[in-house]
């Protein structure tokens, strides 16, 4: 009897793992700087369920891009992954694989676009040639088919495909380059796609159409998408689940509409109040107090949001808060959940 | 009640002026960062001292010792002697002044002329650019070496200033072109446009806004110009094209090869090798130091307090 129950829980556990496209645990990335070691990503656990769109919000420098790079083991010096495991599709820990295998995974299994996508294209080769390079690097058999697919993607993204394939990077505008970057992340048919600030150079109409295409493609191919940005509007519109990132840690996570409708962490609350919106009273908006964390903040023993927090107490300085569930899958890392400014 | 004296500014805030201090501090820090740079710096300092004080260490006519012609290396003659018995070391030390001074002047001339013309051409564009560039092209196409040979028949290069001037005149072209192209791209930058909009004078824009951004290139070019000039003048003297008026390294090389048959007879070898060694050492010093120059002028490497 106990045998069957353990077998059941084991298979249930395995089942759960299978549902996760990416299951990252205990990711720690440290940057070595002249002023000391800065923990850019600290003890982060993150799950990306298959076929979901997860949005990761954080200010520039909060470590959100580093987290994505760490998951792909693409962190460059002076950064270094000091611990963590990333289970891909419930099978292997990709951080333990050889660098050759990791390289194959990047592109084939995980498609990604750097934040500076405009600058990560090779300036000396035409776009079309670079697609062929990518195909050859990943041992794609039918290169012609690859180019055809790339063209279809570009047209869907609203670009003149033939012209773009024949161009060099500097001949394209910033918005065009961002869209080319998105095409690169999708062209090898990866099931998992990471997008880092993929719409910042686009104006409203282009951005709306790109988001629409991402939504369509996600539905068609059941893609798992992780979208990193500082723009809450874009993330709120696109993603079902949201992770709020501050100073290297996840401080709140949950279903998008729920986290935005009833935010629990003071940072999330402040963030929502601080963003320009098309709705609501303009005099109700308040900028966030204090300034972004710097190397001094990281030396603190207690909560990293302490300096800017409107509901802090002395005990918040003693230790770091952990992520705890408030209801269903809505988690917050704060000692004072539920307290008001006036308390 | 406040007296007029104190009423003016109760909180006199004097901002930490980081103008001068930070450049030299940053320069020193970049030099000391790597041992190779320190060595280079030390060599340059050594030769500079040699150039300044060298001739004072010896009498104006170096002693001749007919008994010690082409003497081998010994404690008395650390680098051997020449065809008259004069110590090669003494020759090197006293000859340094001409070589270095001429090269420094030549490099200075190249850099100043090239930079100013490059800045003006690159910033004002239009007809001033065309004129300046035509002149530059003219100078670029003149083969400097034959020109120097021809000029040497009418001009006495006894004074390092004359040599420096001639070297400078023939080599500022490349510098002007490079500075011009950097200026052309810098003038489109936001801060230059902002300076125009704020009503700052073109002089200010050229020399206070654009020039500091080209300074790293200028610094490095200054040093490579010096090496270039040294080789040019030494070469000229070596080839015997320029009449032998003074005592310097190029002359030594010329004498060693053509008069003393140093290529075939081993006795005169120290006489040949001493100037070569001096040249090599100096070039090495400059090259090692060059590494620090880019860092020195890069404000991004000034550390935040």
């Amino acid at each position, binding site marked *: 009897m106990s045998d069957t129950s353990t077998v059941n829980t084991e298979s249930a556990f395995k089942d759960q793992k299978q549902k996760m496209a990416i299951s990252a645990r205990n990711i720690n990335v440290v940057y070595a700087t002249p002023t000391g070691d800065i923990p850019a990503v600290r003890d982060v656990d993150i799950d990306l369920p298959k076929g979901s769109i997860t949005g990761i919000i954080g*200010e520039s420098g909060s470590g959100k891009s580093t987290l994505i790079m760490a998951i792909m083991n693409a962190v460059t010096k002076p950064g270094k992954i000091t611990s963590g495991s990333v289970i891909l599709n419930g099978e292997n820990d990709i951080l333990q694989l050889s660098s050759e295998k990791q390289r194959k995974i990047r592109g084939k299994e995980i498609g990604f676009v750097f934040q500076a996508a405009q600058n990560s294209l090779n300036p000396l080769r035409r776009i079309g040639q670079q697609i062929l390079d990518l195909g050859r690097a990943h041992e794609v058999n039918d290169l012609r088919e690859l180019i055809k697919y790339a063209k279809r993607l570009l047209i869907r993204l609203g670009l003149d495909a033939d012209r773009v394939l024949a161009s060099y990077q500097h001949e394209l*505008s910033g918005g065009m380059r961002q869209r080319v970057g998105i095409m690169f992340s999708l062209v090898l048919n990866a099931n998992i796609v990471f997008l880092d600030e993929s719409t910042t150079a686009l*104006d*409203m*109409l*282009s*951005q*709306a*159409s790109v988001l*629409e295409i991402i939504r369509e493609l996600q539905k068609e191919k059941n893609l798992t998408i992780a979208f990193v940005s*500082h*723009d*809450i*509007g874009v993330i*709120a*519109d*696109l993603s079902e689940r949201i992770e709020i990132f501050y100073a290297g840690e996840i401080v709140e996570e949950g279903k*998008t509409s*729920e*986290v*935005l*409708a009833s935010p629990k962490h003071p940072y999330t609350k402040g963030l*929502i109040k*601080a*963003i*320009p*919106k*098309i*709705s*609501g009273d*303009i005099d109700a*908006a308040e*900028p*966030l107090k204090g*300034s*972004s964390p710097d190397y001094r903040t990281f030396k603190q023993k207690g909560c990293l949001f302490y300096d800017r927090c409107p509901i802090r107490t002395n005990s918040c300085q003693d230790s770091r808060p952990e992520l705890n569930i408030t209801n269903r899958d809505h988690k917050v890392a704060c000692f004072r959940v539920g307290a008001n400014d006036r308390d | 009640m406040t007296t007029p004296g104190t009423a*003016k*500014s109760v909180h006199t*805030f*004097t*901002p930490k*002026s*980081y103008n001068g201090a930070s450049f030299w501090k940053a320069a020193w820090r970049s030099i000391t960062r790597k041992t190779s740079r320190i060595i280079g710096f030390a060599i340059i300092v050594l030769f500079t001292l040699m150039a300044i004080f060298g001739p004072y260490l010896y009498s104006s006519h170096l002693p001749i010792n007919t008994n010690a012609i082409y003497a081998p290396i010994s404690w008395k003659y650390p680098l051997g002697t020449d065809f008259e018995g004069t110590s090669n070391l003494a020759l090197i030390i006293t000859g340094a002044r001409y070589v270095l001074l001429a090269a420094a002047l030549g490099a200075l001339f190249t850099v100043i002329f090239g930079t100013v013309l490059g800045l003006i051409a690159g910033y004002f564009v239009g007809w001033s650019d065309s004129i300046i560039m035509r002149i530059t092209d003219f100078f670029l196409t003149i083969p400097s070496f034959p020109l120097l040979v021809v000029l040497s028949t009418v001009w006495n290069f006894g004074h390092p200033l004359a040599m420096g001037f001639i070297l400078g005149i023939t080599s500022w072209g490349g510098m002007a072109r490079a500075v011009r192209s950097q200026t052309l791209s810098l003038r489109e*930058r*936001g*801060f230059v*446009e*902002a*300076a125009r*909009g*704020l*009503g*700052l004078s073109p002089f*200010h824009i050229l020399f206070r*806004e654009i020039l*500091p*951004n080209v*300074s790293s290139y200028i610094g490095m070019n200054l040093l490579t110009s010096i090496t270039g000039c040294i080789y040019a003048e030494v070469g000229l003297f070596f080839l015997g094209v320029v009449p032998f008026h003074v005592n310097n390294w190029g002359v030594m090389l010329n004498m060693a090869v053509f008069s003393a048959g140093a290529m075939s007879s081993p006795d005169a070898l120290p006489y040949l090798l001493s100037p070569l060694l001096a040249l090599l050492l100096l070039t090495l010093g400059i090259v090692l130091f060059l590494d620090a120059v880019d860092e020195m002028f890069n*404000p*991004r490497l000034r550390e935040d307090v």
Partner: protein
Amino acid sequence: MIEIKNLQKFFQIKAKFSNHKTVHAVRNVNLAIPSGGALCLIGESGCGKTTIGRMLCGMENPSSGSIIIDGQDISKLKRGARAKLLQKVQLIHQDPYQALNPTHTIEQMMKATLKKMAKQKKKDADWIRQRMDELLKLVGLDPETILFKYPHMLSGGQRQRVIIARALTVEPEMLIADEVVSMIDVSLRLGILKLLRYLRERHNISILFITHDIASARYLGNDTELYVVYKGMVIERGRTERVIRSPQHPYTQALLSAMPILKGIEKPGKDRFVITSQFRQSEEEPRGCLFADRCPFKQSICDEKRPELVHKDDAYHACFFPKVRQVAAESI
């Protein structure tokens, strides 16, 4: 205090086969901004809004039309007087990093213009130091921690504030803010917007706010005007809140529809729609409405005649079939 009438700008672009193509970048634009007022130009990239801003501060010359600052038409003035007048209008760029000289500390940068002002006003070094202090505090920065730094040591928001402080050294009457918050994190934009509003309301400095993000335009105050620009032409105009809540032109409606919805806080406007076709530099000049090829509500007359900007009920629009549609997101 600043007015433009019938402003036009044509650009010559070298097309592939050496024929020059003429682009009509700004078409017959009229606008007026009172002292302390704020006017927002909204549109996609390439619509001409930046060109309008650059013409207003003298960085570009109009092909035709007049720019009138404080009652004087600048094209009729001599170079010296013209330069002096144009200095009252300062441009703030989009990229705060490019707009600062990387080899100057903030102090050196502020002193460059303050020295000039001090000479004009016959003031001394103490005045310069005080003014630096004053202006940095005005934009919300602490002089002690900022003056000795180089631009690369500051954050994007700090750089933008420093640039505004620099613009204020010459005591302008108007600031042209060209996409000034586009390169700053969304969570930090409000600070800069509030600063601009403060400069308007307390220091009477007019603001021409150029952006593609309509939401940020709201935060310059309750009495701002919004001009929607499409391919160089103003196609809708009115008080900001009114244009947002009751837009009449399909293009304005498309822009408002395209704004992302904050799930949980906002709900989409009931008439919201999506346009799929892309903005392209047109090959030939269309005979009719400039927006006709992308307009979901177009009718045959739209391809034949071009609608002019007409005044109706306190707002302006350029459309033959204007219809108010509630497309902007609303609070839940």
